[in-house]
């Protein structure tokens, strides 16, 4: 039996109270943090908790975020959000973020997710937390009920797929392009619900927001978790976001840890685009037929963090978007929007012709303002399933914030490297 271990194994072993765990075995883990939102959380949990006559196991470990149905567009949305607010008060939840932005961005921005933790979220993009060296994955509402009542969850210890990226990304190429390249290669279930760990010098060079994009889209790889070993970048970011002095030292994969290893070259990576209607339907942007667009959407936990807004502003600064194109910008959190305003980033985007939308899930999940019939869209979001963002006749392409901004400028799907040159 091997004694070397992957980061994923070490994180699971700690949560299971074990010295070590082996891939394939089923263990029970103690949960350090349970996050849910207005759609998956209170409206589902409240009636089930009542049916059981049970209480929340530990309120201090629960975080509630209102991000899916805000701002409330109709009576049904108002009912759902009101229920969440009332329940949060009844339960005296200490950690509630209402209309502050998208859970996967807001929760780390308040220092809740730290290296070594074991966390669950009521949303598939909960894998974003892996960027901080935590084991975090998405679960459904009934499974969340189990966690909220018992503080525990079962897990089959995953194998690790190591995605090693050597070299450095070119200017105008980003974490989103790395993810689309990997999803295109392995497919939407290629992660086989195992752990994906991103490593190598190109990953180590990425700021936290870009690491979050990698781990966020572990969901589109079909992995349970996406992980980046925490380092100085992680510690510095957390210190600036309410969690100073974290210990990242124990949380890395041993050199010869068990797993499957894949190698990629960041230096030669071109911007990638996913064509309708799958994130796995990927081409290099330069291999696309000329594709005219109606809407350019910069939004979601995947593609509208401060760094994403900065990328778009670098492309658009001093220019106007093409006639007939609508550029929609929904910053991932209020904090990101305010920082972008202070830096002048929002000014560049608005002057270029962008329309500012609320910091919420919005069009990404088709919950909020939806995309119209027949529209061709380039989007910085994570999924382009047919009909997800609105009309089934909409053609949704996925790209990086750089690519979305360059496309808004040209009126067709474009390579940001041409603009930045």
């Amino acid at each position: 039996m091997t004694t070397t271990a992957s980061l994923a194994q070490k994180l699971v072993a700690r949560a299971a109270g074990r010295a070590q765990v082996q891939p394939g075995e089923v263990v029970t883990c103690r949960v350090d943090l349970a996050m849910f939102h207005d759609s998956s959380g209170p409206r589902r949990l409240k009636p089930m908790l009542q049916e059981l006559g049970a209480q929340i196991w530990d309120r201090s470990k629960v975080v509630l975020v209102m991000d899916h149905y805000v701002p409330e567009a109709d009576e049904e949305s108002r009912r759902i959000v009101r229920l969440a607010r009332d329940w949060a008060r009844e339960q005296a939840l200490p950690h509630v973020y209402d209309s502050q932005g998208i859970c996967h961005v807001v929760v780390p921005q308040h220092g809740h997710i730290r290296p070594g933790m074991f966390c669950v979220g009521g949303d598939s993009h909960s894998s974003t937390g892996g960027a901080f060296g935590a084991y975090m994955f998405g679960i459904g509402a009934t499974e969340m009920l189990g966690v909220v009542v018992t503080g525990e969850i079962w897990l089959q210890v995953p194998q690790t797929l190591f995605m090693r990226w050597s070299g450095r990304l070119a200017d105008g190429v980003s974490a989103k392009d790395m993810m689309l390249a990997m999803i295109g290669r392995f497919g939407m279930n290629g992660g086989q619900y195992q752990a994906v760990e991103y490593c190598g010098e190109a990953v180590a060079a990425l700021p936290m927001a870009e690491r979050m994009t990698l781990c966020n889209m572990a969901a589109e790889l079909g992995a349970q978790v996406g992980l980046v070993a925490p380092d100085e970048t992680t510690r510095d970011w957390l210190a600036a976001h309410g969690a100073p002095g974290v210990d990242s030292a124990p949380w890395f994969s041993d050199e010869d840890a068990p797993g499957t290893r894949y190698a990629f070259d960041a230096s030669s990576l071109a911007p990638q685009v996913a064509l309708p209607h799958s994130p796995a339907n990927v081409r290099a942007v330069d291999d696309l037929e000329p594709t005219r667009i109606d809407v350019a959407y910069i939004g979601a936990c995947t593609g509208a963090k401060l760094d994403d807004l900065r990328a778009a502003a670098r492309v658009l600064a001093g220019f106007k978007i093409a006639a007939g194109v609508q550029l929609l910008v929904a910053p991932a959190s209020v904090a990101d929007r305010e920082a972008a305003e202070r830096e002048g980033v929002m000014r560049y985007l608005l002057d270029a012709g962008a329309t500012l939308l609320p910091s919420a899930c919005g069009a990404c999940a088709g919950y909020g303002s939806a995309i119209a019939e027949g529209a061709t869209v380039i989007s910085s979001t994570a999924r382009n399933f047919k009909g997800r963002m609105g009309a089934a006749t909409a053609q949704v392409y996925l790209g990086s914030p750089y690519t979305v901004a360059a496309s808004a400028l040209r009126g067709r799907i474009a390579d940001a490297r041409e603009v930045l040159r």
Partner: protein
Amino acid sequence: MSAGAGRVWRLPPEVDTDQLAPGHTMKHGIERTAGHCLEAVRPDFAAGVRRGDVIVAGAHFGIGSSREQAASVLVHLGLAAVIAPSFSGLYLRNAFNVGLLLLTCPKAGLIDDGEQVGFDARAGRITRASGEALPCHPIPGFLLDMVEAGGLLPQLKKRLETR
């Protein structure tokens, strides 16, 4: 139930959660979602499905969101099981949690639309109308117990009552 028989609805590969439970229905509750279930893939499904029917799909069934309505809607519509060569791992957890049986069957592609098939999860076997047996991957006992109990909620209820 972990064994039974039913009429087959064939579906393509990569059926996603947003096709099973469209986003625009999510705020209205499971009845509304049921009326639109799979409308983009099999427009005849929601109105034509009968209690005890079985879905036989292509690979990677259930990719996408964590919304468990994508599984509970099939329980609501009375599906007895979903058979596919592979499932999204997140969907698999949700399905057993809400009492929906999933059978991973590498040869699911042989089964025809409308065919009557038998299934026995504990024996790890699908039986075609012709009598041909197709093997399924074994399912851990605790998950079979969960699906036979009707999901995690009834299990938790029992556990809390006997505490």
